[in-house]
């Protein structure tokens, strides 16, 4: 509704929520609906038990599922924190430069987040780009 001049908030990406909420219309954001039907509403122990723990686990699973790309991005942003090569040594700086160059290339390709995620998943936190 309102936005500052220099950015486009909040950008609705394709494929996630169906459509943005419309004032006065039936709210249709999946996130809004899940938030309410899974986490709110009155809880009665019915005869068929899907216990609350299951539901909580479920919402966690959903978050993990849909958050994987963003989580990867976070990991990509923070990769340097876990990198022992940053602690000392000229050789490590060279490696760092190499890594940074690679990282910039990935970012320019628009695939940085995904790649970093793969790296972490496959190899843990180590220097995988020695050549």
């Amino acid at each position, binding site marked *: 509704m309102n936005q500052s001049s220099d950015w486009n908030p909040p950008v609705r990406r394709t494929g996630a*929520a169906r459509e943005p*909420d419309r004032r006065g219309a039936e709210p249709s954001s999946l996130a809004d609906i899940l938030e309410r039907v899974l986490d709110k*509403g*009155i809880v*009665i122990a019915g*005869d068929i038990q899907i216990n609350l723990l299951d539901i909580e686990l479920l919402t966690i699973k959903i*978050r993990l599922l*849909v958050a994987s790309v963003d989580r990867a991005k976070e990991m990509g942003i923070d990769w340097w924190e876990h990198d022992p090569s940053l602690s000392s040594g000229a050789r490590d700086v060279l490696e760092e430069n190499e890594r940074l160059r690679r990282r910039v290339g990935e970012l320019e390709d628009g695939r940085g987040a995904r790649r970093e995620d793969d790296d972490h998943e496959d190899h843990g936190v180590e220097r995988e780009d020695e050549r």
Partner: protein
Amino acid sequence: MNGSLATWLYAVTAVPEDGTPPRELTGVADEPVRLVEAAGLAAVVGSVPLEDFGEDALRDHLEDLEWLERTARAHHRVINGAARHGQVIPLRFATLYHDDDRVRAMLQERRDDFTATLRRVAGRTEWGVKGYVDPRSFLPDPDEPTDAGESPGTAYLLRRRAQRQDQETAHLRATERAEEVHASLAALAVATAAHPPQDTALAAYEGWMVLNNSYLVPDALGAEFTALVTDLGERYPAITLEVSGPWPPYSFTAPPNRVEEAQPEETPS
């Protein structure tokens, strides 16, 4: 027939004066929605096949995000539809009974609670308000670079540390503004509920969600409330406000042990 069906509950409401069920609604299994009445209350229910909604089947289905979306929307649609006929108490997703008699017994048993809750939310509507910010709008002014004399690696590390601190400062500032927005909105509400920020991928937004609250607003103030959201959006141009609703009172029908959740403490990256 009952051997293969269970009763899915959507909502509890007062028995409608005209006694007609919400005939136009279909539920989570495309089943017709009907009313089960007892104790002056009516449960909005549907009969669903156990092969899809039994304990094991349900657990499997819940892993399937498409199924979940479809079914959660259907659950909500029925609650929302029923709410057009009178105030409802929405029931948590996947509340299932073996048959209607069990539902009647439950209504009898909990009559006082339901009645009190319906009275509490009567003539009131839930509105959701979310606030998004671009973190860059709240960043401190950039400091002079302090790279002099440091090795490239150390300078980089220091720079990243400074950036992280700036992010925390930005988050604090944004949260403070969001609190001001919340205080203004709360003045029109009889109750408020704070929700955690939504997942960025699921809700499809960028930046930070610094406000995600529900407000229980008297029906007579609904227009004023939404107009206030617009006004606040203009008063706080760095926060993008989004209103959703009107909702059935999902966030305000739980027993009053509601914990007021704090704003997010972690700093999103």
